[in-house]
C-alpha cells in the first residue's frame, strides 16, 4: 500500500465513520430523505461563501454550508407546517430549487475553480491526499483528514453528551417535551450536525453518495441489533468496512472510489437484509414457514385426539380433508412420524402415546 493509498483510505474511513453516527438518529426519526435535502442544499452555502472569500479551504465554507442546510430544513418544515403541501412534496420542492440555484451559479461564475458540477456529484476522494497540512515546513498529512477528523470528534461529542436527550426525543417527542427537554432544539442541533458532516463528506464523496454513507450503515445495524448504542457502534463498523473495501474494489476495476464505496454499502445492506439472523428476509420467511408447520402439526394432533375422544368416529380417521394442500399434509405426517407422535398404517393415521400427550398439552395451552 502506497502512502497515497493510505491517505485516501484514512480520509474515507473518517468520512464514513462521521456519517454513520448522526445517520443512526436520522434513520430512527424517519428522516433519511432529509439527508438528501441537506446534502443537496449545502452546495448553495458553499458557493455563496466561496464568492465572498474566494478560498476553497476557508473554514467559513463549512459554516455557510451548515447554515444553508439548516435553511433548507426550516423551509421544508415551514412549507409542511402550512399544511398546504404534504411532507414528501415539501422536501421535493425545496431542495431541488436550492440545488438548481447553486448549480447555475457554479457553472456560470465558477467555471475554473476546483468545484465543478461533476465533482459535486462524484466527490474528489482521489485528490484528497494532494492537499497537505503543513505546519512550519513539516508535512503532517492530508488536510481533509484533519478537517474530517474534527467533524468526527464533533459528532462523537454531540452524541455522547446528548445521548439521553437524543434518545428520548427520538423515541417519544411529546413525552420528551413534557419532562422539560426541548425536542425542537435537539432536532435543530442534529440537523446542524448532519449539515456539517455533509459538508465534510461532500468534498470526498459528492452530494448524492453522501446519502449512502449516512443512511445505509445505520440501516444495516438496525436489522442486527435492538440496542441503540450497539446500533451506533455497528453502523460505524459497517461504514468503515464499506469505505475500505470500496476503495480496494475501485482500485481493482479502476472506477470512481466514492461510487464504489456507496455501491458496497448497498451490497452490505442486501446481504444483511437477506441474512440477518432475526430480522432478515430469509429468517422471516423461515419463521413464517415454521409457524405454519407448527400450526399444522398442532391441529393435526388435536384433531386426531378429538376424534379419539369422541369415540363416535372410528379410531382411524383420514385427516386429509383437514388440509387444503395434500403436499403440506404429507409433509406434516412425515414430520410427526419421525418425531414418533403418530403412527401410520396404510392409509390410516394413529396417535402414539407421545402424540396424545402433546395434543393434550396443546389444548390446555389454548
Amino acid at each position, binding site marked *: 500500500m502506497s502512502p497515497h493509498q493510505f491517505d485516501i483510505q484514512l480520509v474515507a474511513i473518517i468520512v464514513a465513520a462521521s456519517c454513520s453516527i448522526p445517520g443512526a438518529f436520522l434513520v*430512527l426519526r*424517519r428522516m433519511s430523505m432529509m439527508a438528501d435535502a441537506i446534502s443537496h442544499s449545502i452546495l448553495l452555502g458553499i458557493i455563496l461563501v466561496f464568492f465572498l472569500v474566494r478560498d476553497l479551504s476557508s473554514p467559513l465554507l463549512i459554516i455557510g454550508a451548515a447554515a444553508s442546510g439548516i435553511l433548507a430544513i426550516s423551509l421544508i418544515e415551514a412549507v409542511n407546517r402550512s*399544511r398546504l403541501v404534504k411532507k414528501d412534496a415539501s422536501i421535493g420542492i425545496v431542495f431541488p430549487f436550492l440545488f438548481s440555484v447553486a448549480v447555475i451559479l457554479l457553472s456560470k461564475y465558477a467555471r475554473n475553480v476546483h468545484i465543478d458540477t461533476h465533482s459535486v456529484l462524484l466527490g474528489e476522494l482521489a485528490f484528497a491526499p494532494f492537499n497537505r497540512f503543513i505546519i512550519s515546513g513539516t508535512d503532517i498529512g492530508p488536510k481533509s483528514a484533519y478537517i474530517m477528523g474534527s467533524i468526527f470528534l464533533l459528532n462523537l461529542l454531540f452524541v455522547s*453528551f*446528548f*445521548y*439521553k*436527550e437524543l*434518545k*428520548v426525543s*427520538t*423515541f*417519544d417527542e*411529546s*413525552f*420528551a*417535551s*413534557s*419532562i*422539560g*427537554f426541548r425536542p425542537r432544539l435537539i432536532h435543530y442541533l442534529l440537523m446542524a450536525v448532519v449539515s456539517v458532516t455533509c459538508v465534510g463528506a461532500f468534498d470526498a464523496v459528492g452530494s448524492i453518495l453522501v446519502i449512502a454513507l449516512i443512511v445505509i450503515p445505520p440501516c444495516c445495524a*438496525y436489522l442486527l*441489533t*435492538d*440496542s*441503540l448504542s*450497539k*446500533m451506533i457502534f455497528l453502523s460505524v463498523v459497517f461504514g468503515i468496512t464499506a469505505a475500505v473495501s470500496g476503495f480496494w474494489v475501485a482500485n481493482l476495476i479502476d472506477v470512481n472510489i466514492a461510487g464504489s464505496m456507496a455501491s458496497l454499502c448497498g451490497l452490505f445492506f442486501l446481504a444483511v437484509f437477506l441474512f440477518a439472523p432475526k430480522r432478515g428476509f430469509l429468517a422471516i420467511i423461515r419463521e413464517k414457514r415454521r409457524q405454519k408447520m407448527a400450526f399444522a402439526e398442532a391441529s393435526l394432533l388435536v384433531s386426531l385426539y378429538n376424534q379419539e375422544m369422541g369415540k363416535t368416529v372410528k379410531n382411524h380417521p383420514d385427516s386429509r380433508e383437514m388440509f387444503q394442500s395434500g403436499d403440506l399434509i404429507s409433509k406434516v405426517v412425515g414430520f410427526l412420524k419421525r418425531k414418533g407422535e403418530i403412527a401410520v398404517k396404510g392409509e390410516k393415521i394413529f396417535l402414539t402415546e407421545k402424540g396424545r400427550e402433546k395434543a393434550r398439552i396443546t389444548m390446555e395451552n389454548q
Partner: protein
Amino acid sequence: MSGIEKNPLIPAIRVTDLTVAYGDKTVLWDIDLEIPRGSMVAVVGPNGAGKTTLIKSIQGLIPRVAGVVSIHGKSYQKQRKEVSYVPQRGSVDWDFPTSVVDTVKMGSYGDLGWIRRPGRKEHEKALGALEKVDMLEFSNRQISQLSGGQQQRVFLARALVQSASVYLLDEPFQGVDATTEKAIVRILKELVAGGKTVLSVHHDLNTVSEYYERIAILNVGLVASGRVDEVFNSENLMKAYGGKTSFFPERKSTRRAV
C-alpha cells in the same frame, strides 16, 4: 419552589378559561375545570372533542390562546416535576432499538436534567416500577417484542418512575387486553388512594362508573364536570355526543332574551 400545597382545598389541577385554536378551528373553548387532589377523573367526549388537546395543553405542549393552568396552586412551569404524562401508546415507534428497562428509565430523565446520565439508582427505580406493573421478568426484553398491553404497562411504569403527584393519561386502555386493563385500573386506584391525582382520557363509556369517581364531559366546551353519580347522565351525554358541536365562537345562533 415546587411541591404539593399543604392546604387540601387547593385543587391538584385548576384550569381557568382555557381556549386553544388551531388556525381558524377552535379546539377547546373556555374550559374551567378543577380537579380535586386525590381524585380519579375521566375525560370523555366524542372524537375531535379536544380530549388529547386538553391533556397536552395542561402541560403547555400546545400553545393556548387564552387561559391559565395551575398545578397545586402554582404554574405548570414550576410544578413540572409534579406531573407525569402517559401519551397514547400509538404515538411512538415501538421498533425503536431499546429495552424495556431503558424505556422505563426515561421517566427519570426529567429529574436528571440535561447531559447527566442515568446510573444505578435510576436502574433500581425502573426495576421497582416494572415490578409494580408486573413486568419485571420482561425488563431486558426489546420493546419491539411486546404486546399492546405490555407496551401500555411499560408506559405506565415510566410514568411511575417520575414519582409525580399528578398523572395525565391519554387513552391508557386503548387496544389493551382485559388483564392489563384490570392491572392498570388497580395501579391507578392505588395511586389515588395514596393521595395522587389521576386525569385520564377515556373512551369506553360502559366502564366509567366502575373506574372513576369524577368525570369531565368535553365537546370543545366543557359540557359538565363533577362526581360521576351526579353528572354522568344521559342528558349531559346527549349534549356532548348527540347533535353537532355548536361551540364555535364565530357561529351565531339562538338569540336569547336577556
